[in-house]
């Protein structure tokens, strides 16, 4: 094994030791509970949030796209960076108001409550699974490539080693997920990306020189239509590129465990702010590094390895290996949470609802683990025999999600008539169109991005479907009208609302309404 492989093993062992030490410490404490997730302070929390956002896509997919198409790739970054803004300003206000009134804790629960049918949750969950496995597959390929560089073994063998490490980690290595290990990892990754970014920036002589040099190689690198004007005049493709990440996020499955703090916590706010600033920075840097790669390593055989190659070119080998180890473990922790979510959704929303209603908890855990194992095996087969690009997989995954969920979300607050049949048609129609459009490459024939095609079909599905089936109930119509009211709060006040208190707020509201009703009755 190469020296880099040894560094990787030492890295993983060090993380393990940190994880073990902290979990030992917390289980020894008499007043603190296991899994309680105590507040860690803004710096650690922010860094932990950052490392979960870092994935194989960020390190490999994004720079490869910029390397291939030039500045056109930044369309995707714009959508990614603006995602939360779209969520907040376009849909946000009404949807959040309605979500509060419905007492929903997650987006899928929101849809189920708004459209008043359990099938909405089940179909939504199944579509989420497609996303999760496609995205996991992208991470697997990234893991295989990172391992191949670290160990010097061929890609296929590295892939099997990488995925095996991930599966063992997911099923048995819970200690590594302790926040402090994420903190250490975060520091290495942030230092690495910032370091590579700064050095590459100096090497290419700043953005202006980068653009001049790119223009000299091929002026179309600077075009908004992509290298060789590949997407010239295709607004459908550009619009799809911008929308894909901003909308896809809304369909992300949320299998979050609710927490209740038993002491006052005053650190969360700062963490969110730090996290948001970092996010904006990290969304654009990988794309810029891809552009720098065109100048610095034009002959690279695999553009997905640009950041790694730049690390080996600009830094001493030891640090590059350390960074690559951090990338590998970022991939591991991303995969870990995706696989756990997929396993939980499949075992709870599909197996327990349809196949075995009286399944014991132990059986569902077993089913969930088998799903993870099955997903792993399928992932290995796809990644070895027909590895798609990491970027392609990420776009496909987010596209499927966006197509399934955008129309139902918009209709939930803007259409009184929208009902569960419409919602189901929109979700199934949108997601299926995206899958067919992508797999048959209909974009080349029609000039329409799969995302936009899916959106059209989803919209038609909602309009036609809502003509059939039960109409929305009176209580939903009342909530619909209430959610149209203008918010009474300032933006800052609104942003700090604790969404996890939605069920309590709903129950207190009901209680007070009942109380004032009985007071009125006693006076009349």
């Amino acid at each position, binding site marked *: 094994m190469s020296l880099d492989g040894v560094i990787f093993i030492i890295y993983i062992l060090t993380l393990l030791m940190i994880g073990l030490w902290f979990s030992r410490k917390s289980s020894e404490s008499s007043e603190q509970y296991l899994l309680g997730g105590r507040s860690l302070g803004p710096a650690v929390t922010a860094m932990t949030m950052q490392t979960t956002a870092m994935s194989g896509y960020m390190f490999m997919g994004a720079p490869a796209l910029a390397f291939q198409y030039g500045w056109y790739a930044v369309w995707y970054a714009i959508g990614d960076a603006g995602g939360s803004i779209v969520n907040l300003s376009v849909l946000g206000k009404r949807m959040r108001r309605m979500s509060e009134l419905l007492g929903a804790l997650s987006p899928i629960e929101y849809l189920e409550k708004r459209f008043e049918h359990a099938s909405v949750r089940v179909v939504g969950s199944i579509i989420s699974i497609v996303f999760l496995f496609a995205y996991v597959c992208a991470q697997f390929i990234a893991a295989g490539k990172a391992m191949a560089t670290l160990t010097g073994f061929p890609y296929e063998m590295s892939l099997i080693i990488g995925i095996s490490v991930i599966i063992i980690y997911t099923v048995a290595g819970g200690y590594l997920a302790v926040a402090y290990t994420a903190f250490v990892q975060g520091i290495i990754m942030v230092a690495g990306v910032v370091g590579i970014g700064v050095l590459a920036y100096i090497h290419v002589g700043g953005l202006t020189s980068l653009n001049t040099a790119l223009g000299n190689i091929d002026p179309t690198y600077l075009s908004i239509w992509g290298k060789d004007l590949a997407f010239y005049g295709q607004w459908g493709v550009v619009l799809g590129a911008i929308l894909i990440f901003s909308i896809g996020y809304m369909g992300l499955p949320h299998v979050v465990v609710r*927490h209740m703090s038993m002491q006052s916590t005053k650190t969360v706010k700062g963490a969110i702010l730090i996290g948001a600033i970092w996010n904006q920075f990290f969304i654009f840097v990988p794309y810029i590094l891809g552009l720098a790669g065109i100048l610095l390593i034009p002959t690279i055989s695999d553009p997905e390895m640009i950041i790694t190659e730049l690390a080996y070119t600009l830094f001493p080998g030891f640090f590059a290996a350390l960074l690559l180890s951090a990338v590998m473990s970022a991939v591991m922790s991303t995969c870990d949470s995706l696989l756990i979510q997929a396993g939980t959704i499949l075992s709870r929303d599909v197996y327990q609802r349809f196949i075995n209603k009286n399944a014991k908890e132990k059986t569902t855990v077993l089913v969930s683990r088998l799903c993870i194992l099955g997903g792993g095996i399928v992932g290995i087969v796809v990644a070895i025999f027909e590895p798609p690009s990491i970027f392609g997989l990420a776009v496909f995954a987010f596209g499927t999600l966006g197509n399934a969920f955008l129309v139902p979300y918009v209709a939930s607050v803007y259409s009184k008539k929208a009902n569960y049949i419409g919602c189901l048609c929109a979700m199934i129609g949108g997601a299926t169109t995206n899958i067919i459009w992508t797999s048959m490459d209909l974009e080349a024939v029609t000039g329409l991005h799969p995302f936009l095609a899916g959106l059209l079909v989803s919209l038609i599905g909602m309009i036609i479907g809502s003509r059939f089936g039960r109409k929305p109930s009176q209580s939903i119509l009342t909530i619909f009208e209430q959610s149209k009211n203008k918010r009474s709060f*300032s933006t800052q006040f609104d942003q700090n609302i*604790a969404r996890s208190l939605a069920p309590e707020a709903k129950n207190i509201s009901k209680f007070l309404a009942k109380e004032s009703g009985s007071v009125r009755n006693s006076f009349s």
Partner: protein
Amino acid sequence: MSLILTQEPQFVQQEVLKGLQQYDKRASVQVNTMILYPYYFLEFEVSAKSLLKFNGKIACTIDAISGQGAIIDVQPEFIQRPIVDEKILPIEISEKEAEQLAEKFIFQAATQKAKFITIPTVTIHSTALFYRPFWLAEYNSKVSGGREVIVDAISGSYHPL
């Protein structure tokens, strides 16, 4: 007079007022009523095999109205006192139901957050019904009228009604 188990508020009226007004200085906020919200507190012993043996205590709360579970961080300090002039929400979930819900919730949370090689054994250690204090605040803005807000008197987090 019947006694209830509750938590000592960490945020008094003045602090809540100050906290809410920091986000919107022009709004007028009034904090008048305290509401007591019922939860079951359940403590479990969990043991499983992971890289090392995983043994310890996990605790959660079950909302005694909606049945929602929430993992908690540290051992709460309860006090026993009579109800003074607070509004108190009636319980809708029985202790037995709460125990069943909690066991399921703890099991899922444990397998999701700390992964084990073996299936964990979860045994219930103690159960208690307690009331968490919430402040009911009236939030008035000149631009768009008034709204009611609840503020968790322990954590300081808030949510509109």
